């Protein structure tokens, strides 16, 4: 896809979003405290459906903690998290994934001894095995992802299972092709170069068929060429897979080049929010990044 077409699509997306402006994720005054340390302090913001939102801030500002609270790894001290009109605050990570939030990790966490194909297939497994998360969906008037029962016995006896396996395989191969990893389909994840490992992690997250994709420093450790590829990849993912993207990033080039809206955190608090241009000129952001002493220089 050409750069020009991407930009055009992007503009269209921004326009349509401005008309609808419907939130997919709401963080309602979320606070996360570890002992005496307040990692996230009264985080109150929304992620709008279809947008590309960035979360930046100095080291230790609490960015990853926000992701961990959203994905259920931590239970927030205060506040609520609403995803797709469901209050997901009390739910466990696997349930939240089933409801439609997928993530990647700051330090890559692939299933290294499994092949690329298997990594992607694992991400589809929750469709068979999450009746409790499906009950949450149904309670909230949404359709469950799986309507059949006894998948364990089907898998062991292979009765009424092979067609499902075939369908999962088909889907996984399709996805791998789409993200451009088919040349390493049967390689172990550990054998992939760094950039492709990052890509695979995103592909694996996409295989859970999320509505919201959380990327934790996707460009970390990449060289300029890989970073360039990643930026167009993220845009493509948003458009082709129809997901909302919420990403943490240190590389300002990535953040300013990809994100349509940016939230800045410092010491657990939101200190600024706006378009890339607004953020670049915000004195509080400059202060947080460069420190007060710079004013005196």
């Amino acid at each position: 896809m050409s750069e020009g077409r991407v930009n055009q699509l992007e503009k269209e997306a921004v326009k349509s979003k401005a008309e609808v402006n419907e939130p997919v994720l709401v963080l309602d005054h979320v606070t996360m405290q570890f002992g005496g340390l307040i990692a996230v302090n009264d985080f109150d913001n929304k992620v709008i459906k279809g947008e590309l939102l960035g979360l930046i801030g100095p080291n230790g500002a609490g960015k990853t903690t926000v992701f961990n609270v959203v994905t259920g790894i931590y239970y927030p001290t205060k506040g609520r998290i609403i995803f797709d009109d469901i209050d997901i605050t009390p739910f466990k990570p696997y349930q939240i994934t089933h409801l439609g939030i997928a993530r990647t990790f700051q330090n890559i966490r692939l299933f290294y001894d499994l092949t690329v194909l298997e990594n992607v297939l694992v991400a589809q497994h929750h469709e068979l095995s999450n009746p409790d998360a499906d009950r949450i969906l149904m309670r909230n008037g949404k359709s469950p992802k799986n309507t059949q029962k006894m998948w364990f016995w089907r898998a062991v006896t292979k009765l009424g299972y092979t067609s499902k396996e075939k369908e999962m395989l088909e889907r996984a191969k399709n996805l791998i092709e789409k993200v451009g990893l088919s040349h390493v389909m049967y390689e172990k994840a550990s054998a992939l170069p760094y950039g492709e490992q990052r890509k695979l992690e995103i592909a694996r997250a996409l295989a859970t068929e999320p509505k919201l994709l959380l990327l934790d420093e996707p460009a970390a450790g990449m060289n300029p060429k890989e970073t360039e590829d990643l930026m167009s990849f993220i845009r493509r993912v948003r458009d082709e897979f129809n997901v909302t993207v919420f990403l943490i990033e240190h590389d300002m080039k990535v953040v300013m080049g990809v994100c349509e809206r940016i939230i800045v955190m410092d010491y657990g608090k939101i200190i600024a929010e706006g378009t890339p241009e607004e953020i670049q000129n915000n004195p509080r952001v400059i202060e947080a990044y460069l420190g007060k002493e710079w004013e005196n220089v």
Partner: protein
Amino acid sequence: MNQEVFFLQNFFNALMLGGLYALIAVGYTMVYGILRLINFAHGDIMMMGVYFAFYTAVLFSSPPLIAAIVAVAGAAGLGFLIDRIAYKPLRNAPRISALITAIGMSFFLESFAVVVFGAVQKPFVQIFKTKESKVILNKVLMVGGARIPLLTFLVILLTLAIFAVLFLIVYKSKIGMAMRAISMDIPTTALMGINVDGVIGFTFALGSALAAASGIMWAMRYPNVYPYMGFMPGMKAFIAAVVGGIGSIPGAVVGGLLLGFIEIFTVSYFPTMSGYRDAFSFIILILILMFKPSGILGKKAIEKV
């Protein structure tokens, strides 16, 4: 026997047993604190120490004190060797590999003892030959109406003295400081120019020496020596280390005493349960791991995501 006397007798027994557990537990906790490895063979090093003492006394007819010193030194050397041969090559392997190797080492030492020393139980008190030394075993003191063997007091006092020396080494000496530094961060400590492998070897030697000391006192009180004698005390001392908070030396003391008291008092106040005395410790272990896995004095570790 009235209540107070009965209590007093159990109290001293528990204090002694708890102290012995604590001495073994320190070895587990120091190694775990540094390498995150459960040295499964620790109880068997204790057993080997007891055999060293036994054979030094029997074959060279040396006095018990000399035999004990030889045994403690021998066990220290054995602990050092085991680390060098079996655990050091696996420092960078997955943690579970070292654990599996330690399990193998435990069975190796047990079967080594069966082959070399024989599977038959031998009375350890054989090492006391002279009349004077037999006094240690047989003399009984009266304390508040309770009959407490002199040996019990000796064991308690000796344990206290050993702990005093241990605390001096760990908290006041240079090598102790190196040990504590390594337990926090191995690569950084190595960058400070400290011989990490040497310190780890010293930790194994120190822990093994304490286990041997504990084992010798154990064998004087529970009077036999046999190849599997290290298994149960070893397991319980490990549980004591976990209960107290693994990685913490004061925790090992607290855990050891707690286990000793629970074991002695449940058995004496509920004699029908005495067959299950070894099961109690495991139940305590599972409970503590469920509700306070960091133990009584341990620090809580937060998993970084």
